[in-house]
């Protein structure tokens, strides 16, 4: 589903050029659950942003679903993004002014889904995430775990092929964190490809494969024992 080859990303200031991603190559197959780990500043989030079509690489190739997307303009990227990719952030990034229902509904509005269908699909996903009873609440009225569940619900409501999770449990206690990881596992079991950036070895164990990075490069790649074929 995803194939990156010799991917590069630089950050430039007036005097210094920093390499964030350095000739990185790997592949993620459809239905895989991959964790990306590494110390702060190793380029994990940059990688996630490029994979999520939020950012453009400076070199190399990025094939998404068989299409070369490196070099796509913002409009093309946005279009591809809204139909195929769901995001889960560490800080949830829910919109405070919108209720749970409205937050989850938002991606459907942007993809032009009709109101009746929107309602049905939002209800369905809220039921699945067990937060239906909170649909009229606003983000500030929810616990961290509940907020992240809403964020996951919002990420999946459009049935994306890929979910990108950036430290999804980073702001949660262990019990809420486990709940979120269970949710992601369930989604993966249902066929959604997941790429997760994490610092947590515990969370990484939920995935099939762990890519470890340092200074913008892949250091190791482990397939977890139970997923080895």
């Amino acid at each position, binding site marked *: 589903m995803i194939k990156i080859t010799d991917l590069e990303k630089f950050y430039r200031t007036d005097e210094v050029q920093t390499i964030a991603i350095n000739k990185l190559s790997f592949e993620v197959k459809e239905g895989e659950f991959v964790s990306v780990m590494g110390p702060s500043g190793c380029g994990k989030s940059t990688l996630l942003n490029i994979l999520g079509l939020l950012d453009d690489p400076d070199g190399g190739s990025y094939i998404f679903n068989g299409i070369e997307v490196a070099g796509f303009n913002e409009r093309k990227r946005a279009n591809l993004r809204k139909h195929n990719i769901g995001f889960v952030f560490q800080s949830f990034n829910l919109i405070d002014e*919108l209720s749970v229902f409205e937050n989850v509904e938002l991606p459907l509005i942007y993809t032009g889904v009709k109101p009746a269908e929107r309602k049905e699909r939002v209800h369905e996903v809220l039921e699945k995430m067990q937060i239906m009873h909170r649909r009229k609440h606003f983000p500030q009225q929810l616990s961290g775990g509940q907020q992240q569940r809403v964020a996951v619900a919002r990420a999946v409501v459009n049935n994306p092929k890929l979910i990108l999770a950036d430290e999804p449990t980073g702001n949660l206690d262990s019990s809420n964190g486990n709940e979120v990881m269970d949710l992601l596992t369930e989604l993966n079991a249902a066929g959604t490809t997941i790429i997760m950036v994490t610092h947590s070895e515990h969370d990484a164990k939920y995935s099939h494969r762990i890519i470890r990075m340092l200074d913008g490069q892949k250091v190791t790649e482990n397939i977890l024992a139970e997923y080895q074929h």
Partner: protein
Amino acid sequence: MIKNHIKIAWRNLLKNSTYSLINIIGLTMGLAACLAVTTVVIDESSYDRFWTKKDQIFRVNTINTRDGELLEKGDYALSGTNTALKDFPEVEAITSIQQFDTYFSFRNIQGEGTKTKVIQTTPSFLEMFDVEITSGSPKNLVEGTPNIVISESLVKRFFNGSNPVGETIKDLPSYSNEPNEYLITGIFKDIPENTHLKGQVIYLHKPRTEVLNKKQFGFFQTYYVSLKNDVDKTTFEAKYNNWYSNYTEVKHPDNFELQPLQDIYLRSDFAGNQIYKGSAQKLYILGAIAILLLVIACINYINLTTARASHKMQETGVRKVLGADRLQLISQYLAESGLFFLISGILAFVIYQLSLPGIVSYIDHPLALTFSNSALLFLGAILSIFALSVLTGLYPALLISRINPLASLRKKFRSSGTGQTQFVRKGLVVFQFSISLVVLIAMIVVNQQVTLLKSKDIGFDTSNLLSIKYSTWQNKGESFKNELLKSPFVQNASISSWIPSGGGGSMNRRIESPDKTGDEVEIWYMFADTDLAETLGLEIEKGRFLSDDFGGDALPQSFYIEMDSVKKAELEKRPSLITAQAARLLKVDQLNVANKDLEATPVGIVSNFNNENLRTSAKPVVIQADKNPDRGSLLMRIKPGSETKVRAKINELWQEFYPYKLLEINNVSGLLQKQYEAETKLLQFFSFFSALSLFLAALGVFGLIVQVTEQRVKEIGIRKVLGASVQSIVMLFSKDFLKTIAVALIIAIPIGWYAMQEWLQDYAHRIEIKWWVFGLAASVVIGIAMLTVGIQSAKKAIINPAKSLKTE
């Protein structure tokens, strides 16, 4: 989608109440003021546009030029022009029009009169101006009694709905002793207010049929002509002027201009006979001000919204990540500005409605068109406000929607905005403050000038002076005056053809200057009984006052009858008072010597005084006396604090002497102040506009400083942890605004100085603009801005840094 936008906009509005309130107050004030000023502009420009033949009717103006230079232009033409014009096939109709006020006694009660606007004209007026006659046939004049047609509202007011056609009413005369009678021959539907031809009564008479004098000599009248539909005005003008130059026998024939009816109200500065007129220039100023007010209010909205961009960045980033395209985001922010404008628009309309009576009293005439009585205007206002909300909302919308989602999610959007947006924002604040400063400077200068006009010593004591309006005295003037002088409160009195505020004098004459050949000195003459100079309180510098004790000081009325060359030659022997200025300019060194040019023999030199208003300089004056003058105003010098008693005494005597005549008593200082009504109104207007623009600018600064301090709360915390004092933090924020205001000062001071210098040029007596005017304006603006910034930044600076650091 739209519902969603509005819902979010509404929630945002409630959530950020301070920001919303500032925006709503600013926009409401701006919109309300703009609606108010626009109403005046629209009303003034709507004058005389409702007449069916508005494009065919013209006023005949006379232009007198010499070698291409305009000497005189007037809203009149020689009597007989009507007869001449009638022979041209291009002319459809012609009428003469004169406007004045008369006191009619509609209920026929003796001594009672209602001030009524009268149009004196000929029956063709009714056809040319499509005045709708609802009763009677006034076009057919009835011989004998003067014919009048009265308005429906007068009928309703005075005749209890019964039809007064055929009835006779009287007036309360100001000249003749006995009331005049008028026959009501018709009723007309009230003429709309927005015309310079205001009339509650139309007084109809036969057209005068005199022949145009070939020597360009005679009476003048104001004529209105309607041309046939297909006639080109310019071609006809040329044709008539050509005909006239052949017809007249003078060397410099006058030129005639046909002034379009729709131009008459606004473009008639030259028109001395026209009572109701506006000023196109004033209208441009008002229009510009309406736009500026709106711009200031909109700048606040733009500045506050862009300053809030950082608050929006995360939300915008999330929306973008979730698939929102730029257009969707722009439309959402436009919905937000739409909501602000909608709320402010509604509030502005309420304020506007409440302020309408104030506007009417300010402009001093009813409004024919307002945003609340014209559906078209109302709709226009709604559409304009909508368009404005889009225009105003567009820049912030474009700016916020441009945010890179990645940067916004990482919170890397600079809290103070990018260099470009900062520049735009500061530029807008500079613009706002420049406007406020210019207006403030204008207000201070106008205020000083008005104070000068109203308080300058004009050569005599203006207080404790009363006057009875110009009248005929029916040979009882002297006795009336003597009776009045018996009152212990009346110190002096004079029947005079001139009173202060009544123009330069009774007549003027240009005399060759003894200093320089070719130069002329303009001398004004005043005719009164012998007591004018003493009643005014002029001081005698040399010689003596005029006095009845000297037999020849006052000329008897009979002298003027059958004036022949012998009598004319005697005029130069006439004992006269001249002002010191006249003596100096005409080199009068010796008294009691006849001066042929002056047609006077100066017997006394009195102190100078301003015979005209202070827009012009004091002119040399000659005062001459008539014996028992039968026409004129009565001027009285009374004891301080006795005005009520004197007024009562006058009323009592008037009843006795002139029971049928109109009595109008005026306080002379009031009359003099009234001369500066235009300046006073200008001052009121500038005061209002200045206060409003300062308020809006301060509101804008308040909004900005609230945003800035909120965004930099962490910085404030860190600075405090590192040892910064509250003052140093206040200074930190104030410095930035001070720089912005300094730029505004650099722009505004030269503009303000230049504009006010130009304005002052119209006044012979004018103030000098001192440096402190700019200092005061700058202090006020800096004071207001610094107070706003200081209080808000101090509030943030006293927060415990532990708390402010935690908020990030």
